[in-house]
């Protein structure tokens, strides 16, 4: 059974994970991280949970500036994602990558509407500005005697959460086609003696012309046939179903169980599962942030707004949710095991691993524990190793669903942030309390299993000492 999985299932799985597309998505999305974290800090600053502090920031008059900073960092992550994915694809193939990134950006912008709304002038001469999507604009214009003029501009609706999957597709398509052109050496070649910098400027010309024209054609077809932009089609038929996967307890359970199961076979589970869940988590997170910001601007108090995000179409499963509950103290939530090994284990091996694991466990790293105990390929510890993260995630999901724990509202921290602190920063005291409870529970979840492993090692060590 183990052999079958190791020799048949895993290689097939790994083939998928190591395909050019998945690698480009995984590494390309990393470019959004600095913007998300910086943007979240701005968001946090102008929505401080403490009233006195919030009033102080307001009295300084810097809220509009912070808000501008937030929308121009966090709320453009789809755009950055397009650049990152196209760039990474070309880079992995060994071609000049920035041109591919720039083409991806243009393709993404071609896919989204080039207007932000419409001025509708009714028959009696009154003008109203409305409609950010094509259908509503057409509807408004259809009113008797009304005139609709579109207002052009960069439509921010699509630059973050809602445009995420479209951006990834733009990056993949551009990266792929660009690399094909490079591989076939279809590019404008400069005669010898032309400086490299000048020649490089022309490298992307032919692929840019072909790829961008392709995107314009797609835009034209969508507009002509359905009166919609391509991004709206992608959002409705690709992104929404994908996000639905993370929006159910079953989906979250499957994702969270897969991570320790892959680790059991010695594969870095979080990296592998993350290649699928991270685009969803990031899109969800950006949408939550938009909803939160909208609620606040409608005058909803902050401490109510964080609970109302779900009712407004927000999501429980976000990047911040993963960072808070998925792998605190490391995959499999091994802190309980580490504490047992350090302070209660009798065998020399477990004591040693415990000491090694304690320091890095605080920062959610636990490779010494996984390979030293070992947990990898050790059937004796697989049960608590899968159970502990499920308890953490299912519990957090339910606590959010029943309205005890606030939704994540955009703030996120690097995954190496120690637990309890991460919960407090991303969500609130409720999350910190649940993290603490989970860590304590992990001790008891691992205890019976760890004891039997300890006794076994002790007997072995006794044997070799006596021999």
């Amino acid at each position, binding site marked *: 059974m183990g052999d079958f999985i190791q020799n048949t299932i895993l290689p097939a799985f790994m083939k998928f994970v190591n395909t050019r597309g998945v690698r480009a998505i995984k590494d390309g999305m990393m470019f959004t991280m600095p913007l998300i974290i910086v943007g979240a800090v701005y968001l946090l600053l102008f929505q401080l949970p403490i009233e006195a502090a919030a009033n102080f920031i307001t009295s300084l008059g810097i809220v509009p500036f912070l808000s501008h900073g937030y929308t121009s960092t966090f709320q453009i992550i789809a755009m950055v994602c397009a650049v990152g994915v196209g760039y990474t694809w070309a880079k992995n193939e060994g071609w000049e990558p920035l041109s591919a990134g720039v083409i991806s950006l243009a393709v993404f912008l071609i896919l989204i509407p080039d207007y932000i709304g419409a001025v509708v002038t009714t028959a009696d001469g009154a003008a109203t500005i409305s409609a950010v999507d094509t259908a509503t604009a057409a509807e408004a214009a259809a009113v008797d005697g009304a005139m609709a003029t579109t207002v052009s501009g960069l439509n921010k609706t699509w630059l973050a959460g809602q445009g995420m999957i479209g951006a990834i597709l733009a990056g993949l398509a551009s990266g792929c086609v660009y690399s094909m052109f490079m591989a076939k050496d279809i590019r404008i070649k400069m005669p010898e003696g032309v400086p490299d910098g000048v020649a490089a400027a022309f490298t992307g010309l032919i692929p840019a012309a072909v790829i961008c024209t392709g995107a314009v054609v797609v835009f034209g077809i969508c507009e002509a046939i359905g009166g919609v932009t391509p991004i709206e089609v992608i959002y409705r038929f690709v992104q929404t179903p994908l996000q639905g996967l993370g929006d159910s307890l079953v989906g979250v359970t499957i994702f969270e169980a897969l991570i320790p199961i892959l680790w059991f076979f*010695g594969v870095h589970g979080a990296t592998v599962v993350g290649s699928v869940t991270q685009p969803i988590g990031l899109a969800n997170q950006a949408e939550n942030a938009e909803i939160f910001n909208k609620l606040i601007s409608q005058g909803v108090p902050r401490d109510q707004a964080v609970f109302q995000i779900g009712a407004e179409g927000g999501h429980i499963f976000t990047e911040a949710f993963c960072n808070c509950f998925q792998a605190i103290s490391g995959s499999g939530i091994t802190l309980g095991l580490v504490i047992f090994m350090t302070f209660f284990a009798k065998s020399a091996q477990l004591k*040693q691993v415990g000491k*090694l694991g304690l320091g*890095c466990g605080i920062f959610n790293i636990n490779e010494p524990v996984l390979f*030293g105990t070992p947990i*990898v390929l050790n059937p004796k510890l697989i049960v608590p190793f899968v159970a502990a993260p499920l308890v953490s995630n299912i519990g957090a999901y339910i606590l959010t669903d029943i309205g005890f724990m606030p939704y994540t509202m955009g703030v996120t921290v690097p995954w190496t942030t120690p637990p309890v602190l991460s919960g407090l920063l991303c969500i609130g005291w409720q999350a910190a309390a649940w993290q603490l409870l989970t860590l304590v529970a992990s001790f008891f979840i691992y205890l019976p299993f760890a004891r039997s492993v300890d006794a076994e090692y002790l007997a072995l060590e006794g044997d070799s000492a006596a021999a």
Partner: protein
Amino acid sequence: MLTIRLFCAAGMSTSLLVRKMEEAAAAEGTEVDIIAFPVGEMDQHLDGVDVALLGPQVGYMKAQMQKTAAAKGVPCDVIPMADYGMVNGKNVLAFAKKLANK
């Protein structure tokens, strides 16, 4: 001087091993230059390197990474799980030396 590069998922868990290997090298009087990187950046960190080691958690990429390393004439293999887990700097250093001499 033995130049060793370690590669794992993010280059973080391996940095603990780097320190232990440096200690082991100092104890036996070997001059070493050891740095850990994420496996995704492997191709950029192979110039002038004697041996490239992979963390067992990225062992599934062994075939692909050995090809990358072989292109630059660098021997590459996966660190034994037990030595990696116990952060046994001495054993991993010996493992690296053996690979490099091949």
